[in-house]
């Protein structure tokens, strides 16, 4: 069981007016679960991944895999599979040659190349030049490269980028399976609803700093406000009754005739409407989505939202 350990990691770019892309970051990516890596553009997600892989040098702090810096691993591709930038493959090579040189460098058998091509659905395109690949095919090739060494740790930067709906379902199932096999899986994304479908745990960055490192369920609960949706036969009485008891009720119903009550639970509203004899057709707690929880977290730090640097 191998994990990624990041300790006090800091990376500054530029000389005197140094900007901190990553600022004193500490967290661990545990095996056996998918860790969603969230944060706005420029929050330091990609920089963190590059530092883990030894592509950039940290200003201070360490990033290790199973206790060792990436550059000292004996079998890098068998230990970590990473997808950083699907555009980074040389366009003049065929997909197969791209995987062949990677496999050869780590002494992986050529059979693995055909296996990962098959697994990512690229077999028929393998002998074509990468220049002619669609964004989704390049993404699949990047994932194929990450899987090449059957690694214990996977680190994928926006893996669903450019994939079609079937591809998105495929990557979701792949990530779940890899974590289920006991691997440590770190997946960055800025698509919250997508991340919610595969992540068990979340690490959230803002301006290079750690904002949260919690199980996804806990994160959503902590950053969402209770809210109830109710459909009734007597909206006028419902509103009047609830407002009189101090709840906030939306001005209008939604398209399907549901009213939103903020700060309430279904139990509370159910009890009140029963007591008052208001007919209720539908009553449900509304769980916040990951997106809402994430936006709640980031707007809590209003200063942070305003100052988030835009990625260029």
């Amino acid at each position: 069981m191998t994990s990624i350990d990041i300790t006090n990691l800091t990376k500054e770019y530029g000389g005197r007016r140094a900007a901190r892309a990553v600022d004193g970051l500490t967290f661990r990516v545990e095996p056996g679960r998918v860790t969603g890596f969230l944060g706005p553009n420029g929050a330091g997600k990609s920089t963190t991944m590059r530092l883990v892989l030894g592509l950039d040098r940290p200003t201070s702090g360490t990033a290790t895999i199973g206790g060792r810096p990436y550059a000292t691993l004996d079998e890098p591709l068998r230990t970590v599979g990473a997808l950083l930038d699907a555009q980074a493959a040389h366009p003049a090579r065929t997909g197969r040659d791209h995987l062949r040189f990677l496999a050869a460098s780590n002494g992986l058998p050529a059979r693995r190349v055909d296996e990962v091509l098959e697994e990512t659905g690229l077999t028929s395109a393998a002998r074509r030049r990468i220049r002619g690949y669609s964004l989704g095919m390049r993404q699949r090739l990047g994932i194929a490269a990450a899987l090449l060494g059957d690694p214990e740790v996977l680190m994928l930067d926006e893996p669903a980028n450019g994939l079609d709906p079937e591809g998105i379902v495929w990557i979701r199932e792949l990530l779940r399976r890899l974590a289920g096999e006991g691997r440590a899986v770190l997946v960055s994304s800025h698509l919250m609803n997508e991340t919610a479908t595969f992540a068990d745990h979340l690490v959230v960055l803002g301006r290079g700093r750690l904002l949260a490192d919690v199980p996804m369920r806990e994160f959503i609960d902590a950053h969402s406000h209770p809210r109830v949706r109710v459909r009734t036969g007597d909206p006028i009485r419902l509103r009047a009754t609830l407002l009189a008891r101090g709840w906030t009720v939306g001005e209008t119903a939604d398209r399907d005739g549901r009213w939103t009550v903020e700060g309430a639970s279904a139990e509370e509203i159910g009890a009140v409407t029963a007591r008052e004899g208001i007919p209720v057709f539908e009553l449900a707690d509304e769980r916040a989505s990951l997106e809402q929880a994430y936006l709640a977290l980031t707007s809590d730090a209003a200063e942070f939202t305003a100052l988030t640097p835009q990625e260029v």
Partner: protein
Amino acid sequence: MSALSPAAVLHSEWIKIRSIRSSFGSLLAVVVAALGIALAVFPAIGQPEAETGEMDPLFWIYYPVNFVQIAAISFGATAASSEFLNGALRNSLMAVPRRNLLYGAKAVVVGSAALVMGVVAGFVMFFTANAFLGKYAIGIGDPGALRSCFGAGLYLALITLFSMGLTFLLRSAVAVLSILVPFILIVSFVIGGVSEGAATWLPDRAGQQILFQEPLGTLGAWTGLGVTALWTAAALLAGWWATRRRDA
């Protein structure tokens, strides 16, 4: 082969060169240009030029080197620059995070490939030219002949690695080609005409002494090649220094 053994990384570097048309094409062009230029030049002006006696008879045979070395330069440059297109170096470093091993293996593969093709080109130029030189032909057993055939290979390999080192430093084949090609075709030629003294020490001029029957100036055949080797070592060191230090 175990993971990250030098043999595995050398194999990987060879696949990289084979799988990119511009790199592999430039490598093949070393021999193709040697044959093509020799066939274009010697049947027509091989003997008349030799007759003037102005040029070292052996060096005249290697006239195609002026063009062949451009293929060598572009082989060195494209083999290196393929790592900088779209950040491809990141893929290479993920597979081989030991930068010294990666850089060393590339230099060995590029240098060896250029040496083999360079020696073949050397013999091709020698025998092709001689086939058309009539009474001015030089035998392979004549003084300096064998030395020059192998020397041409060594010179082309050194020029290739010089170009590779510079490309790692500047991270662009276009930059390196637009410096080296005009330099070799024009600057070196012009300076050579003006002052023989300083020009002797230029990377191309010095190394080409190995192609003369009687080397010009102060440098001998092998010391001249040694001077080129020093230029190459400097370029390779600069490229290595840049690769070691920079964020990929």
